[in-house]
């Protein structure tokens, strides 16, 4: 069972108001085989906010998250995380961003504990041994810590991937469909994590279709369609109309901050 208070260790973040935008993109676009998965997104997200990325399949939510995580490079435009360019300063951005995608990035032949120990070594986590045990307990996998991940269900793998984030000190957390494959306890775990990150001022961008569940945990939401922002709701995020020709063609509705 997850503990009631989840331990998250942010870097020294300072007051949200005094920080630069956690995310600032200008005409950000990414092409795959000539087709625009992201067609020119200009988006600002204030530090410390929890923002949902909404939209149908193929809207560009995952592409936007992967660009911000430095997993792929922009085709056009630019993106900054905490004022750092994701393309030119990717190595610095990686120290500030935690990303959990559809794929969990776990090693099947290692145990849950060994997977987190490896992640702790990569993240240079202080007090790694204690933090690993704490993270395993926080995601409800303490009793299965010595089992190989190969034998885990999809939901347990997702929990362990979320536990990996708890070992770092990211100022921006990117989650792609975090509720997918989780049971009731797992769903509650994600809610607790989102609340804990909000409490310590970590910025969270979460792509999800679970809008009803996410609603109370959000500051705002960004709706994407066909690779462009078509609507922004709530507070914490703003967007301007796209200027790239390809984005104007894709954009069917005015952007309303």
């Amino acid at each position, binding site marked *: 069972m997850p503990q009631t208070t989840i331990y998250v260790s942010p870097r020294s973040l300072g007051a949200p108001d005094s920080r630069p935008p956690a995310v600032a993109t200008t005409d950000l676009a990414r092409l795959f085989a000539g087709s625009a998965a992201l067609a020119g997104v200009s988006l600002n997200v204030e530090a410390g906010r929890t923002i949902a990325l909404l939209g149908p399949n193929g809207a560009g939510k995952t592409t936007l998250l992967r660009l911000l995580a430095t997993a*792929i490079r922009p085709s056009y435009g630019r993106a900054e995380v905490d004022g750092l360019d994701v393309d030119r300063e990717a190595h610095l951005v990686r120290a500030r961003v935690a990303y959990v995608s559809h*794929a969990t990035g776990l090693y099947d*032949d290692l145990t849950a504990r*060994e997977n987190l120990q*490896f992640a702790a070594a990569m993240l240079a986590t202080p007090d790694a041994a204690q933090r690993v045990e704490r993270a395993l307990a926080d995601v409800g996998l303490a009793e299965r810590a010595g089992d190989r991940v190969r034998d885990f269900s999809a939901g347990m793998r997702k929990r362990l991937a979320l536990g990996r984030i708890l070992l770092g000190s990211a100022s921006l957390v990117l989650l792609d469909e975090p509720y997918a494959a989780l049971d009731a306890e797992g769903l509650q775990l994600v809610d607790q994590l989102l609340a804990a990150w909000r409490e310590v001022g970590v910025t969270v961008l979460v792509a999800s279709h679970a809008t009803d569940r996410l609603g109370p945990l959000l500051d705002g939401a960004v709706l994407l369609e066909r690779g462009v922002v078509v609507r922004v709701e709530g507070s914490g995020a703003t967007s301007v109309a796209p200027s790239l020709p390809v984005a104007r063609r894709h954009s069917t509705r005015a952007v309303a901050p």
Partner: protein
Amino acid sequence: MSALRSEAAVALAICRKDALSELRGRHATVSTLFFAAVVLLLFGFALGPDSARLAAAAPGLLWLAVVFAGILAMSRLHLLETDDGALEQLALYPVGRRAIYAGKALAGFAAMLLLALLVLGAVGVLFAVDVASAWAPLLATVVLGALGVAAVGTFYAGVTVRLRAREVMLPLLMLPVLAPLLLGAVKATSAALAGDPFGEVAAWLQLMLAFDVVMIVAGAATYGYLLED
């Protein structure tokens, strides 16, 4: 200095992770050793029972078996990173690309060293070659040969790991590049087994060392680009 220490810690963590995965899954060990044994036996059958002929061919057979089986081992070691997006996650950690290359190459070196020592022992038994009397130069040859195959194999396994035809592409890319190393290793082994009558072992070992240094530097400098999508 602390940056160097931190890169070394990252490389060791990656090497340890690969070793643990291999010990548990035995993805590379079984297939690689079996393949090396088959190569030696088939070449032995093809050459016939003449012991002098087998002994003369032993250095070449040793290194062909090590290189062929080594290509398989390097491929299997990189396939660990295809588990559920592991390669992308590895690339997203805030660590130097050189350290990732060093960790993967170190794990490859350990696997290649073990493989080469086992194949050397098998050659000694199967082809009646006295490897014990020339152990020092043979050990140096094996270490440098294993390091070279690991350095080249880590880079090209990184090139091909995302390809569908990786099992075909890896040997096609690696074998031409490994030719100088193979030549040096075979010549050094032949000379060592003959008692080094012309004092040429050192020169061949120097060639292998130079090859290893060039390949390690080139691999460390360029491996990061392979991690980008």
